[in-house]
């Protein structure tokens, strides 16, 4: 009950944020965005035609009416039709989001878990050889551009110049074997790209916890090193770690995939967004930007709730 009330309160607090992200999206993409008049009508339009299309697009309306129309599009999840294919944007999204999710999820999960394991090992050997090795690896990982990783991995695993084990491009998935076949290299890329940053972040969090007084207390009472790390520290460290994980989820599903989906030509949200950006297909970009932003705000609310479940102090402070 109390948790429900807390959740409700957090949702209410998210309203100004939702207002903000929708306003920024509106300003950037609609109000100051491209004028679609000429992409909707043919060559040599008459001035009547122009006026008619502009009225249809709502360009003659005042600011707040247009913003209201934009909000209505979001609430009804009706962003109109794609300018290039004419397909409904909502149905494009429904078709592509699951693909993106399937591509990104394994890499995301493996990367986070592997990073957490490496961070625990590094923190446990703080200052030692293993720690330094892991941290050097992390810095190197952080310093290689995403694009370079994609190219190298593709050369190594997918091309005749390398192992040539996996498909260069595409996404033809009808069973689990296909899925693994197509998802393997993207997953490796995602793991590699995220690993450095995540390991460093997790290690910093864990080392900070290791310096706390309660660790000394636990040690003074004979609690084992393993248990201190796996129970005492991990539960405390889960607070910043889970925040980071949950908040990055919406971005992982859409934004992170722009490069991978484009390079591997996988028909997910990233690819259609890329195509929309290059062809100026505004309804799609608009839909993707706004829904990711809203997803982010929802994730933010969700982390607050998770926070409260892990950290008993939050209940008191709120």
């Amino acid at each position: 009950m109390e948790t429900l009330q807390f959740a409700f309160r957090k949702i209410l607090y998210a309203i100004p944020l939702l207002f903000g992200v929708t306003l920024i999206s509106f300003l950037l993409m609609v109000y100051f965005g491209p004028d679609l008049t000429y992409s909707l009508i043919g060559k040599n339009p008459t001035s009547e035609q122009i006026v008619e299309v502009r009225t249809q697009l709502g360009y003659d309306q005042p600011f707040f009416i247009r913003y209201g129309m934009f909000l209505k599009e979001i609430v009804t999840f009706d962003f109109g039709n794609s300018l290039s294919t004419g397909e409904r944007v909502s149905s494009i999204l429904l078709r592509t989001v699951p693909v993106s999710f399937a591509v990104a999820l394994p890499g995301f999960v493996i990367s986070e878990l592997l990073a957490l394991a490496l961070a625990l090992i590094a923190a446990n050997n703080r200052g030692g050889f293993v720690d330094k090795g892991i941290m050097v690896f992390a810095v190197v990982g952080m310093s290689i551009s995403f694009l370079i990783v994609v190219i190298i991995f593709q050369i190594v695993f997918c091309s005749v110049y390398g192992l040539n084990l996996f498909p260069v491009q595409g996404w033809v998935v009808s069973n689990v074997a296909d899925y693994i076949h197509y998802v393997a290299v993207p997953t490796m890329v995602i793991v590699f790209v995220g690993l450095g940053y995540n390991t460093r972040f997790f290690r910093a969090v864990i080392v900070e916890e290791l310096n706390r007084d309660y660790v000394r207390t636990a040690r003074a009472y004979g609690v084992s090193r393993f248990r201190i790390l796996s129970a005492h520290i991990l539960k405390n460290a889960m607070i910043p770690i889970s925040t980071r994980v949950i908040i990055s989820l919406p971005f992982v599903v859409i934004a992170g995939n722009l490069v991978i989906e484009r390079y591997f030509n996988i028909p997910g949200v990233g690819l259609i967004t890329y195509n929309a950006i290059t062809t100026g297909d505004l309804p799609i970009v608009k839909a993707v930007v706004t829904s990711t932003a809203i997803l982010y705000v929802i994730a933010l609310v969700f982390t607050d709730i998770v926070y409260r479940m892990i950290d008993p102090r939050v209940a008191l402070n709120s």
Partner: protein
Amino acid sequence: MNETLVQVRDLKTFYPIRGGFPRRVIGQLKAVNGVSFEIPTHHTFGLVGESGCGKSTLGRSLLRMQPITSGEVSIAGRDIRRLAARELKRARRDMQIIFQDPYGSLDPRFTVRQIIREPLDTHRIGDKHFRNDEVFRLLEVVGLRKGVADRYPHEFSGGQRQRVGIARALALKPKFIVADEPVSALDVSVQSQVLNLISDLQKSYGISFLFISHDLAVVQHISHEVGVMYFGKIVEQAPAEELYARPLHPYTRSLLSAVPKPDPGAGSAGTIVKGDVPSHLNPPKGCPFHPRCPVAKPECAVREPVFQAPAGESPTHKVSCLLYE
């Protein structure tokens, strides 16, 4: 005799407690809840109490570093609550503060010279040469060498930093200084040096002090008059020797008996008061001390005592306890 320099009448400083849903003010934290006292010139008024009793808030309220909720504060004839920004800045020359934390109270990026000059620069006192001479003079006054002027705070020990903080407070030649736990963060052997410095300054320059501390022995040593604070109120006030010789309020008594004495023959303390300080969210009715008081009567839970000098006591010894009404 001495005239009154600081006069406080029924001072209240509340903080709003926010909470609930939607977020709103759900209560008042009555940090200082109706305090009155006077400090004559050339006097040190000691304020003693446990953490959270409101003694620091009181000190900061007097200097208007904290918005005052109600009541009157007059320092050197100025009504502190009603000063406009310009007048307040002028008034700050007469009232200064010394802080507890010798590490946090000096800007780490400033040299000692810059730190001590800041008040002179801010109030445009004298020219460049005068200000530099002043820095050297002040360093000498607080017992530091001239040569340290261009060093940085991190190069000093806690006691030396505290001296720099005192020099800064003295720069404007204030008439009144709030000393907020000035020695509690220092090591025992350095404490006495700083305490002697403060009492020397008080005598030489006739500065009045509000000396805030949780340490009863320190307060007794340095003060002419002492007020004991509990839960936002002064519960007992008397000249120092009188208060320590004949404590009246049960809280003062238990405080005094709780202080560990460096004398193995003294035996253990008498009555140890039970429990913790009450919560501000749910303040006790009647006398705030009654839930912990060893001699509480049923009446104490109902009626709040008046702060007054009991019959038969000297008029300077005031206490707020129903035992004496």
